[in-house]
């Protein structure tokens, strides 16, 4: 192997030893450890675990203890959900769990965000590796560690963990931890997920795992520092306490088990639980057919500019090995926030298995442990230390969907199913992130719970459910506006109304999204941002002939105070984006549409911001849809009569919606014939369709065609090899705009010095 540092020949083993010692003695700081961060499998059995398993091997005893520990984790989860101040805590963006002494997550709370299952173990392993024997830190009974920097674990920097070691007679037997999506973290924009971040320095608090609790007390000096570093000092305080007390509650349960059953029983239970789940996953995978499925998802922006960003996926199953190969996906953006660390992607794939494929499996790290994930280094799905990742959800969600789309083909062919074969769910956080000073004078920064209302994909036998759940959690809540309005100075003037024609058709249609229209009312310091893709290209794919969803742009109306309109000229107000944007009822106002990556925008009273939650994908051929279902969709406001007739070829009376079944059958037969008439032989199609390179007019990122080793970087002439990282800078959108204006000035013959 070539030495990357010197470029010279590889040194001898003895030299390597010396170099290693030198490097250890001269470590600048303990950054994220690739050995920890790249590995999502279980740690090898420790001697302690071997010993414990030999002493307590009985599966029934272990089952009893596991159930008790599970109840303890669930109890801790409920505490966090109940006591937590962060909106994330209230909708279950939480995990509480018990980790082995080596740091593997053995038993986790059953509800909430399961993607945590695969990512929360990394910081504990960092503590084990670096702080256990570090004299200036150490790990002792009564200690608690805090962490949020995703480069050391977790999904993104909005997630904060509290981690407590559990000792028994002086021996570290396990860890307990509680993780919550806190939102605000002092980043360049409020809410904790800045899309404006151009480097990690813009992403707010970056807590590598450090000790913040001693003797079960939060250290006031460190707490003050953290409160001083964020916009919501109350939230920081409240939720640190909440997480600490949830951990203490789980600790009680563990201590009771230690008292009655002993440390070996606990250690054996934690280890065997993980090993049993891992073995079961291998067994289930082995029943899938041996084959490969290729798919891809397109991201249509970096949240700063429109572009075409490929998430490429080949899923291969052979024997009991399942491999997600994401090579060929876009290179990382050096100064854009949509990159993800690899752990985040794996976490979301773990979510896929635990919610959408094998929902009966227990929550923990083991379900994902035996599944292989391959990516290019410094790619959008496996970004480097220096790349921002605060909007990693864009990439992990599209990565998830690529996986969900590919897996459906395997499930369809597998005799033993644990749930339904289904088309992809909608995958973007179409919601308003907000911040500023509330009507009560409080500084707040967070988001609307509407992100939890993603439409479900259709299944093999029925339509998808509207606004069912976010792809990252079950039983999540889109909340009550009356309660929200007490705290924030804006109203959702339209809160939950189905967005007409924003559909994903199919034999079974996807579950639909709903409209949200907000306007600030009682604050002069308030603003919104949105962070989603899919305004121009759908971020999901349909299944077996079903369609993807529509596209969902952001619409704004400025130069109006709709509260004046509603009070004084109420007849002018409309309750749908469609009507407001088409009819433009407020004179003098400015009506605009945008991609969904709106940076933090200070809003004036009464200006409208309008978005729609998205639909899950459709399943099966449109022409097979029951005409009764089509008409029902019209009646329920999901679809206009024109669109229904055009897409589904259903013939009905527009006034009464009475279906003419005979005419419908004929229209569909005609359409089938027309399809045949439009078709061309495959070779001919390929010849006419395929291009050797991406088009020059589109900023395209990722592989093109079958060559996954060459990654395009925004133009047909700019490439890198998948395994050879290169910087990939984007120009600041303002500079792009300035350049455009300067070009226009130059074209108009204005002398350069007058530009000033």
């Amino acid at each position, binding site marked *: 192997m070539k030495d990357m540092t010197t470029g010279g020949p590889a040194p001898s083993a003895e030299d390597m030893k010396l170099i290693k010692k030198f490097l250890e003695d001269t470590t600048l700081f303990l950054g994220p450890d690739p050995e920890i961060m790249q590995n999502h499998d279980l740690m090898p059995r420790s001697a302690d675990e071997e010993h414990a398993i030999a002493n307590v091997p009985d*599966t*029934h005893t*272990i*089952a*009893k203890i596991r*159930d*008790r520990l599970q*109840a303890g984790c669930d109890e801790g989860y409920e*505490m966090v959900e*109940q*006591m*937590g*101040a962060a909106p994330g*805590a*209230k909708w279950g963006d939480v995990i509480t769990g018990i980790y082995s002494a080596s740091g593997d997550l053995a038993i986790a709370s059953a*509800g909430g965000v399961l993607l945590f299952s695969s990512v929360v173990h990394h910081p504990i392993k960092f503590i084990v590796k670096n702080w256990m024997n570090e004299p200036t830190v150490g790990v002792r009974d009564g200690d608690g560690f805090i962490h949020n920097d995703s480069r050391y674990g977790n999904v993104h920097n909005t997630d904060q963990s509290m981690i407590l070691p559990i000792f028994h007679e002086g021996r570290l037997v396990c860890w307990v931890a509680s993780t919550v999506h806190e939102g605000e973290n002092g980043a360049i924009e409020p809410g904790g997920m800045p899309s404006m971040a151009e480097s990690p320095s813009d992403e707010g608090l970056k807590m590598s795992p450090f000790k913040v609790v001693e003797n079960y007390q939060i250290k006031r000096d460190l707490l003050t520092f953290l409160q001083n570093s964020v916009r919501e000092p*109350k939230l920081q*305080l*409240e939720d640190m306490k909440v997480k600490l*007390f949830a951990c203490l*509650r789980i600790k009680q349960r563990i201590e009771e088990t230690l008292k009655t059953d002993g440390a070996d029983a606990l250690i054996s239970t934690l280890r065997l639980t993980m090993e*049993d789940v891992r073995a*079961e996953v291998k067994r289930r995978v082995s029943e899938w057919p041996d084959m490969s499925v290729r798919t891809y998802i397109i991201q249509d922006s970096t949240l700063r500019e429109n572009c075409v960003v490929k998430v490429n996926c080949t899923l291969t199953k052979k024997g009991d090995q399942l491999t997600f190969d994401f090579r060929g996906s876009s290179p990382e953006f050096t100064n854009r926030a949509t990159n993800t660390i690899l752990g985040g992607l794996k976490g979301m794939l773990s979510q896929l298995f*635990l*919610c959408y494929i094998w*929902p009966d499996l227990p929550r923990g790290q083991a379900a994902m442990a035996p599944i292989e994930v391959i990516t290019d280094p410094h790619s959008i799905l496996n970004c480097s230390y220096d790349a921002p990742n605060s909007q990693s959800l864009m990439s992990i969600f599209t990565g998830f969907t690529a996986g969900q789309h590919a897996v459906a083909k395997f499930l369809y062919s597998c005799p033993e199913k644990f*749930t*339904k074969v*289904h088309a992809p*769910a909608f995958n973007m956080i179409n919601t308003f992130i907000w911040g500023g000073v509330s009507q009560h*004078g409080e500084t707040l920064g967070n988001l609307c719970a509407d992100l*939890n209302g993603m439409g479900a*994909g259709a*299944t093999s036998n*029925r339509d998808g459910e*509207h606004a*069912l*759940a976010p792809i990252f959690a*079950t*039983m*999540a*809540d*889109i909340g*009550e*506006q*009356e309660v929200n*309005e*007490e705290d924030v100075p804006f*109203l*959702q003037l*339209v*809160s*939950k*109304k*189905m967005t007409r024609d924003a559909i994903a058709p199919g034999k079974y249609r996807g579950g639909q999204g709903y409209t949200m229209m907000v306007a600030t009312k009682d604050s002069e310091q308030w603003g919104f941002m949105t962070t989603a893709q899919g305004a121009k290209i759908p971020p999901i794919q349909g299944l077996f002939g079903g369609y993807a969803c529509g596209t969902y742009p952001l619409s704004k109306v400025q130069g109006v105070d709709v509260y004046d309109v*509603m*009070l004084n000229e*109420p007849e002018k107000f409309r*309750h749908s984006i469609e009507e407001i944007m088409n009819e433009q009822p407020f004179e003098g106002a400015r009506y605009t549409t945008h991609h969904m990556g709106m940076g933090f925008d200070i809003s004036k009273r009464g200006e409208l911001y309008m978005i729609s939650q998205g639909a899950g994908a459709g399943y099966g051929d449109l022409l097979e849809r029951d005409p009764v279902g089509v008409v029902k969709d019209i009646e329920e*406001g999901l679809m206009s009569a024109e669109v229904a007739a055009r897409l589904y070829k259903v013939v009905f009376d527009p006034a009464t919606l009475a279906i003419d079944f005979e005419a419908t059958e004929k229209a569909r037969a005609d359409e089938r014939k027309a399809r045949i008439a439009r078709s061309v032989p495959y070779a001919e199609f390929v010849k006419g369709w395929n291009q050797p390179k991406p088009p020059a007019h589109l900023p395209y990122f990722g592989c093109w065609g079958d060559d996954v080793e060459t990654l395009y970087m925004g133009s047909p002439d700019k490439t890198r090899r998948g395994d050879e990282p290169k910087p990939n800078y984007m120009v600041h959108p303002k500079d792009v705009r300035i350049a455009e204006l300067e070009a226009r000035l130059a074209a108009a013959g204005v002398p350069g010095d007058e530009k000033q």
Partner: protein
Amino acid sequence: MKRVSVDIGGTFTDCFVVWGGRYIETKALTTHHNLAMGFNEALGKACKVLDLELEDILQQVDSVRYATTLGTNALIEHKGPKIGMLVTAGYEATVPLSRARGYGEGLDDMGKQDLPNAQRPDPLVEAHMIRGIRERLDFEGKLVMGLDEEDVRRQLRELVDRGAQIIVVALVNSVVNPAHEQRIEEIVLEEYPSHLLGAIPVILSHQVAGRKGEYVRATSAIVDGYLHSTMYHALSALEQNLRVHNYEKPMLVIHNSGGMAQLNSTDALQTIHSGPVSGIGASEHLSLQAELGNVVATDMGGTSYDIGIVVEGGIKHYDFNPVIDRWLVSVPMVHLVTLGAGGGSVAAYDRMYKTVKCGPESAGSDPGPACYDRGGMKPTVTDADLLLGYLDAENYAGGSIPLNPRRAKAAVEDALCDDLDVSVIEAAKLIREKVDANMANGLFTELRARGYDPKDFTMLAYGGNGPLHCCGIAQNLAIDKILAPPLSSVFSAVGAGNMHQLHIHEKSLYMVLYDSNTRRIFSDYERFNGIVAELKERGRQDLLRQGVPAEQIQHNLELDMRYGNQLVQTTAVIPIHELNSPSDVLQVINQFSTDYGKRFGEGSQAPEAGIRINTIRVSSYRQHETVQFQNIKPLPKPERSAPPAPSGHRTCHFVGHDEAFETPVWARKDLDPGVEIAGPAIVASEVTTFLVNPGWTLVAAKQGATWFLRNEAPVTKH
């Protein structure tokens, strides 16, 4: 005291008559087409015991009280009118989307986690019957957009044209300003006057639920509207039946709030689950009379295990957003948790963990456990109980269901023995151990989540399978006292006989007791006191309307409070009902801090983040004379007597014991109060089996009460 109380369940109508010093328990099958028939039959049986005519009894009793699960059944069976609904424009999909999570409300964990299979229940209001009205109020009730009355009239006509039989109105922020909802009601009356054909009942959401939350309030109003006519007609028929039989006092209906009211002061929504809630009421009453201290009431039947908590000091545990059938609603309901564990819970091999799993799948009553011989092929808890020797195959359920041990054996063998490599008996023990552990875990979590320690509780065990499994469950906890309560076969009816007239009124509001930004303590005493006075007055009027003398009306004040922006609102019971000084406010803050610390851990409080009141709640009540139980305490050990000779012996196997026990069997009716029996032992009655595990002692008490006492100090398993 002379009193009749009745619990009308899905299968049986239970009747409890107190006649002076006599207590009569009777049962009849519930007659769904006319509830009065079942009632008359059950009461008729009591008449025979007392040798009196129906009319004589009804003329002399101080009250007739009804608890019923009728509403729950109507919801499950989806029998109700076509509802038309008016909501604030822009909120038309609020109900259909059910806060997203609505797909999983009322389901078990697997149902909640399996997203591809997730499906919302069939709606009570079809999506096209929900119409948006052009109006809007803000969180303080201030006008944002005036009510468009023409819009109301137009939408209303369309709904009626589409067949609406009842109109539900649920507008945003109507609890802080009901003006728009009230005006809509007037418009409905203008359009469809009550004296004309086609008059339509109107349900206003703010009258059904007083708390903020447009979705839960809307579902509350919908459920109320859905059940309105069913409940009204059924209960009116009952009242009419009473009138025919010379009962001239008002009929009292048990509420799920743990109180009761006259029919004309009862919402349909308040009657849901009133049967099980009455069981908790009976537990509370028993706890007070028998000085049991903290009690956890458990009711184990064929498919479910219900848990309720009664603690000393009068703190009531409510669910303010309970799930009724599949619907999240807003109504203060006595807290009840139902676990999917019962005699019908199905056991299966857990391939992953190489052990036994049990539930949540249930064989129910049809086909039922394999031993029922009705086609069930899967092993259940009841099959295990039979194989372990606890059940009498000939006399199960009073002999009404003959059990077939061969079926039970075959089912256990097929499903478990080969995979586990164990004998049938060992497999049955594993089933038993697993289901008891499941229930213990559920019970433990339930208590711990509220800050209680199980070892400080007495377990009440009732329901068909309660006394059969209670020792096994308690063994997993540190509970060392179990009481199978007196009059257990009609326990909910007994509870109904002890309720007080009660009305709860509450108001959502934004009230900051400590503002951490300005570091100011609340001082708007007038506002607080005004709201409390208003809520008290509403409760007072409710009771005065029912003829309660003013001097008998009492009130309790509760505040739902929170730190900072928490979700949870911890309820604090406040002894002072008026705030007049900073020290009063601090007293409230301290009370909240104490209650919060007990629940979540001392030190977990976060007053630095600010302290708010979200809801003020006043319970207004009139205490009624209660049924006096005889002394059911277990006699001190030296005073206990030996049992008579057992009626037989059965070979029984117990978890934790390798050897089988020749276990003596008694009939419960043969055991006089004070009799003590050391486990292992079986005591059988017509309705249940009392299983005394090794290490436990049964002590018979008066009125059929039966104690299980642990012989030695327990070892905490949790």
